């Protein structure tokens, strides 16, 4: 850890350290150092002299900034004994308010990725081989000198992954010192068209959005819950809006494909690809409804109804994805309906998106490379070989550049073509800053020393500059950290103080002018004019984004929120097209365009127009490590190099394709069993109109029930669940003649007996984004099982990614079930309901009495406890679990010598030291994060107080960007969960089975009536 990193909270010492350690040890906490399973004699605690704030077995938290996307959310790095093992949202950060998306949470898997470059690499005889940092820096100095002396510095090119903060300015200054042009700040699949339109309309790249101020939300393909803009703050605001019950906004999604965002909409208007503009114009009054209906293949009545709804003038919010023109028209709608300043907060822009180069600028640079006009290429973070369409032939162009330097940490497609690799530190190992919002500085500090022999690029650049006597004076700072402190308003003291919270108010001096929009001439052809029979929609994967997530097994393994397919690229085919062409899920399709062809299995999806197919971008890597390579296919192979004329953004929906069945069949690696509920009331919903009618539990009591109960329907009454004899015993409800009850005695010193840990999941808030699943993987050492090397000859897909999942062996303790509602055959009006399903911690648990060895039993505080060491693996508990939330260790996922090992060396550093890694042949399941419960209880005891209400929460609840999950003690009215349980929307899943679950769901609220009606 760097010397002056400052922990967020000093450990409060209610007892001496020795006592605390004794308690920890005596509690049998799973503090065994599972993080160090290698036999190389590593130190348990990697310190020679232990810093004061570091206590073995107690976490420190360091506030930092997430760099997985441009947004710049605040994070807390949880550090134990010198290793960062978990990333959580920083509750004090104004952007993400404590939440964090899957990609951000998975960045630890990037940190410990086993395929990272471990030291600088130099191409020798066509192969990258390790060299020392001294050599590497010398070599870079030489090359820079050569370029400079040849007078070709002006034609050097630096491509940097777009980020905000001080680095872009620092980099440009450094480049200028060598006479090089400013760098390209590249972000693949960013919504360049929207940014350009926003700049034209509002003068900022990305306004903040306040969904709570709207009564009607209309999204024209803007997937604001996924990759469009800053998804975490948008999701927080959207969920807050949707939680307002009858006052919540109605949400209409316009687009050919119902994305995850579209699934959260109350209405889907399935327009033709490319016809969004016509609809937006018609709604804005600059076009006729009839023409728009014809262009978009949407019934006139549908558009007319929306126009009528708008005419009533409800506060609204219009969002656009895709091209500049649509975005501009939509901005016009916002202005027309008075949303600017109300729900579109252009005065509070998300500044992280400023300064982004367009795809066309990158492609121009690539063309210069191809023409041999680029003397030297430097790439940091970006991976243009993968993210550019195959038809751009970036690799060929790069071959024309004499010397190519990569600062990538990973062996990705681009760095594998470079001559010199100077691996950058991971964001968790680096200093930095960001300016996510005006007047907010978000600081980035390292959570630990570098895992491998990597160096921060900024420090490398400084070292190189110092080697040049002419430049040394221009770069006085000894390190990038010092440079940042030098720039920081208030200097060292303020900087150190700000590090504690990770954020401060103030503005960073910006050397970079706001980028002007660069128009391009290589515009996309009219989609109707391209050859083919079917429209192609290419969208960034919600989890893998532009493919940078593909080397993180969590993101590969967590099923796509929409298709529920993992470790695979599928061609989504609309239900009507599938029926017409006799395509079934799993049939291999060949998709062809003028630019290329791919083959991939089909996934039949009701949320897609019959004349359209959709393919997620992000898989199909040919390099990038063991988890990404040879997994899925890349739809970029199909795309022409074509840009949105006015913004220069790559046009992702720009071509038609020819789709043919090959006759092969590949089973889908999917977590989906049946996508329909079969009337079992698992995911329940209520219409907003009925919210006022449904009685509260108290009212229902008075009127003698009121509603008729269907099986699975909620009685709106929370059953505390402590009905099983053991549980009753725990509550002290059973008569006792002696005092031999141990912990079950309510007077027992542990004081656990009167607790009932419980959870509510508000389905009105839940968007199905699966961030809770990632959080659970991270917190609970859950094995990923789908990597290619983990397959087995009995799996049916040997040597294929996802082989174990094909046999249903995924281990996610919490899963997002996605049910479709609608008629027998789902039409456009179908509804999607998401249910996070986890162990329901039943009060009367079917799993408990069937275990022959007491491996699962009821704890005094009402938890279903699974004792891994006692489990012999009969799997009877799983058979008897109606919710099917128990997971079995089919292979030795925790044994390093096996091919199924889930944490190849250094990935195991991420393992949570508080949680056991389960062995082969035992059952596991959600524990309600029992390690967090016990930690809080121990801390409270040490501090001589009771556990306070809402003092801690589970990992899933902590991460949820919708705040849909609330955890707490339902036996204590002070906890929020107790209030949530009293909600009239509350229900238990399979209540008729008398399991007395501790997980209470709050019904989803549907808004079918026009806003303002």
């Amino acid at each position: 850890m760097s010397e002056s990193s400052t922990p967020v909270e000093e450990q409060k010492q209610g007892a001496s350290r020795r006592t605390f350690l004794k308690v920890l040890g005596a509690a049998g906490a799973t503090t065994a150092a599972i993080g160090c399973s290698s036999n190389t004699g590593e130190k348990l605690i990697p310190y020679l002299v232990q810093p004061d704030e570091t206590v073995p077995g107690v976490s420190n938290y360091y506030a930092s900034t997430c760099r997985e996307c441009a947004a710049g959310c605040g994070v807390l790095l949880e550090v134990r004994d010198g290793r960062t093992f978990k990333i959580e949202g920083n509750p004090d950060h104004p952007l993400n308010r404590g939440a964090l998306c899957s990609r951000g949470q998975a960045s630890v898997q990037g940190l410990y990725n086993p395929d990272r470059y471990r030291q600088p690499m130099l191409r020798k005889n066509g192969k990258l081989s390790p060299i020392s940092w001294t050599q590497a820096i010398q070599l870079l100095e030489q090359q820079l000198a050569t370029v400079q002396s040849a007078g070709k510095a002006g034609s050097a090119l630096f491509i940097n992954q777009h980020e905000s903060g001080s680095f872009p300015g620092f980099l440009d200054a450094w480049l200028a010192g060598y006479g090089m042009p400013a760098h390209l700040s590249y972000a693949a699949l960013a919504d360049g068209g929207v940014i350009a339109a926003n700049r034209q309309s509002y003068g900022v790249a990305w306004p903040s959005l306040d969904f709570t101020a709207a009564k009607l939300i209309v999204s024209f393909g803007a997937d604001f819950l996924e990759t469009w803009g800053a998804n975490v703050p948008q999701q927080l605001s959207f969920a807050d809006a949707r939680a307002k019950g009858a006052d919540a906004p109605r949400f209409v999604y316009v687009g050919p494909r119902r994305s995850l965002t579209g699934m959260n909409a109350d209405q889907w208007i399935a327009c033709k690809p490319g016809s969004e503009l016509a609809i937006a114009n018609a709604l804005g009054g600059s076009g006729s409804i009839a023409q728009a209906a014809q262009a978009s293949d949407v019934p006139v009545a549908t558009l007319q109804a929306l126009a009528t709804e708008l005419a009533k003038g409800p506060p609204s919010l219009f969002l656009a994805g895709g091209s500049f023109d649509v975005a501009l028209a939509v901005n016009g709608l916002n202005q027309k309906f008075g949303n600017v300043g109300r729900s579109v907060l252009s005065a509070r822009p998300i500044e992280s998106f400023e300064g982004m180069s367009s795809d066309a600028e990158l492609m121009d640079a690539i063309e210069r490379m191809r023409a041999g006009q680029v003397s030297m290429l430097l790439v940091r973070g970006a991976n243009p070989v993968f993210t550019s369409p195959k038809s751009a032939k970036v690799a060929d162009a790069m071959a024309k550049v004499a010397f190519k330097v990569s600062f990538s940490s990973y062996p990705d497609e681009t760095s594998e073509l470079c001559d010199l690799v100077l691996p950058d530190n991971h964001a968790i190992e680096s200093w930095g800053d960001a300016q996510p919002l005006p007047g907010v500085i978000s600081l980035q500090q390292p959570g630990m020393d570098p895992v491998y022999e990597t160096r921060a690029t900024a420090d490398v650049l400084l070292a190189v500059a110092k080697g040049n006597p002419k430049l040394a004076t221009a770069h006085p700072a000894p390190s990038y950290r010092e440079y940042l402190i030098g720039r920081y308003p208030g200097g060292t003291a303020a900087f150190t103080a700000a590090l504690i919270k990770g954020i401060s108010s103030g503005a960073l001096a910006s050397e970079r002018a706001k980028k002007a929009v660069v128009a391009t001439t290589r515009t996309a052809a009219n989609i109707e004019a391209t050859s083919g029979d079917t429209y192609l929609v290419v969208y960034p994967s919600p989890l893998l984004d532009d493919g940078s997530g593909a080397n993180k097994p969590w993101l590969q393994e967590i099923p796509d929120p929409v298709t529920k397919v993992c470790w695979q690229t599928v061609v989504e085919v609309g239900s009507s097209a599938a029926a017409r062409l006799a395509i079934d899920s799993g049939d291999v399709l060949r998709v062809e365009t003028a630019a290329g062809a791919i083959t991939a299995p089909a996934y039949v999806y009701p949320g897609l127009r019959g004349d359209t197919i959709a393919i997620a971008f992000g898989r199909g890597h040919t390099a990038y490590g063991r988890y990404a390579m040879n997994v899925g296919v890349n739809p970029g192979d199909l795309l022409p190099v074509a840009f949105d004329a006015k913004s220069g953004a790559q046009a992702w929906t720009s071509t038609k394709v020819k789709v043919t069945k090959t006759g092969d069949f590949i089973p889908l690696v999917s977590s989906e069993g049946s996508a329909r509920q079969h009337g079992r009331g698992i995911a329940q919903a209520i219409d907003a109109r009925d919210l006022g009618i449904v009685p509260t539990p108290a009212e229902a009591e008075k009127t003698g029930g009121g509603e008729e109960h269907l099986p699975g329907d909620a009685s709106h009454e929370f059953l505390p669940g402590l009905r099983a004899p053991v549980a009753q015993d725990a509550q002290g409800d059973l008569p006792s003649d002696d005092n031999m009850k141990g912990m079950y005695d309510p007077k027992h010193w542990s004081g656990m007996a009167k607790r009932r840990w419980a959870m509510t999941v508000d389905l009105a808030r839940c968007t199905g984004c699966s961030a809770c699943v990632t959080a659970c993987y991270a917190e609970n050492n859950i094995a990923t099982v789908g990597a290619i090397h983990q397959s087995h000859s009995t799996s049916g897909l040997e040597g294929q990614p996802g082989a174990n999942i094909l046999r249903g062996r995924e281990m996610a303790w919490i899963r997002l079930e996605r049910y479709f509602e609608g008629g027998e055959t789902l039409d456009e009006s179908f509804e999607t309901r998401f249910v996070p399903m986890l162990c329901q911690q039943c009060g009367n648990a079917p799993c408990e009495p069937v275990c022959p060895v007491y491996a699962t039993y009821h704890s005094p505080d009402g938890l279903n406890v699974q004792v891994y060491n006692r489990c012999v693996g009969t799997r009877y508990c799983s058979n008897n679990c109606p919710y099917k939330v128990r997971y079995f260790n089919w292979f030795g996922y925790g044994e390093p010598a096996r091919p199924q090992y889930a944490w190849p060396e250094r990935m195991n550093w991420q393992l949570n030291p508080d949680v056991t890694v389960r062995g082969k042949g035992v059952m596991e399941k959600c524990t309600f994060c029992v390690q967090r419960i016990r930690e809080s209880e121990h801390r409270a005891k040490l501090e001589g107080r009771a556990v306070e209400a809402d003092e801690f929460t589970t990992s899933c609840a902590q991460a949820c960007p919708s705040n849909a999950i609330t955890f707490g003690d339902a036996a204590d009215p002070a906890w929020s969960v107790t209030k949530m349980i009293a909600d009239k929307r509350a229900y238990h899943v399979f209540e008729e089975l008398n399991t007395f679950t501790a997980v209470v769901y709050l019904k989803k609220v549907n808004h079918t009536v026009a806003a303002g009606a």
Partner: protein
Amino acid sequence: MTAVAPETHEERRDNIATADVQLPLVKSYTQVTDEILDTLKITKAWLTGLAIAVTCLGIGATAWIYQIYMGLGVAGYHPPVMWGVYIITFVFWVGIGHAGTLISAILYLFRAGFRTTIYRCAEVMTVFAVMTAGLFPILHLGRPWKFFWLIPYPNWRLIWPQFKSPLVWDVFAILTYLTVSATFLFIGLIPDLAVLRDRETNPLRKKIYGVLSFGWRNSDREWRHFARAYLFLAAFSTPLVLSVHSVVSFDFAMADVPGWHTTIFPPYFVAGAIFSGIGMVFTIIIPVRRWFKLKHYVTLNHLDAAAKLCLFTSLVVGCAYLTEFFIAWYSGSETEQAYFVNRVFGQWWWAAWIMLTCNGILPMMLFSQKLRRNTTFLFTLSIFINLGMWYERFVIIVPSLSHEFEPWQWAPYAPTYIDWAILLGSFGWFSMWFLLFVKQLPVLAIAEIKEIVPPRMRHPVSRLSLDGHGETPGTDASNEVL
């Protein structure tokens, strides 16, 4: 040595399900002893059979060792189908293990004479079938090396098994049944062991047989004690026949799984077990009587009677199948109804129809006496019954688990080559023990058969006896005289 007459020769068609059983071609005690002991001679065919059995066992054992090393993932489990081929095969073998005790104990108490010639075979089958079945609960464990945690033994951790769990009941039921049926088999063997001892020339083997026969001297007193002990054990075993498979059925009936959670399971499982056991008896005894030239002992009359028992249990099982469907409809439980519709029309429809055909429809042919006396037909039918009963357990276990409450977790299931290898190994294991037995100990009860040889023929009267194998009266007198 024995020239066996054609099967139709002197066969009686009376109701022979009584003590009044006759073996017209069996003339003397000596003939009984000679002919039955003759089956103990080792032949090439037997050696070949043993080699095949041991090979199959080897394949299964290898697969198991591999499975222990790699983890249960090498088997075809597909959550939520957490039980598969192993538990199916476990229930299958436990079921097989029922006919033996039924025939030897219950039919003994009922004085059903036809049991005399088949009961030893059935009892041996029972013991080895239960030994085979007993392997599977261990074999299917995630951590089989910890299997003893299911047994309540004193330990310093003071942890006991969960006595509410049907799996613990299983441990007791199976171990009790194995102990009692093995004891019963051994007690019945004592007089025969004495015969072996007397005929044995190898001193070591003679010694062993002597010890095993408890120094049987054929005295009146010994016979009196023997008869009482045998009757007592028969009475003791009888309830076990009903209890073991009831307990096995609790593994399912006590769970909340649709398709499992039903009160009909205990009688249904017991009937099914007896049905499958008799099926397996046919599968074994028909080749045995042919290859060991014992057709004049195990006559068509006996097979006919056993086939009637088979038919009866088939009808009980068929009735249970229909009752299950009725109750599912009558219950009004949607999950239960959905499961039963899925059972016959869903992804596993073929398994359900194999079960219904093999166990309910084909055995109806046994209403024909002609077919009951056709050994080829009986053997073929018995194979179908074995198959049908395996699939019955498949239908109970796999479709139920794959189609439970939570539709999102509905899943397919397909066994892998490891599953099949272990299933094959179980047949190898069973066959190996059975084959070893039949060459060491008589597969027909010598003493009991002698009881039904008519008294006036107890001594060979002339050299004109059927086999022409003349023997002087009085040889081996100590054994031959009852």
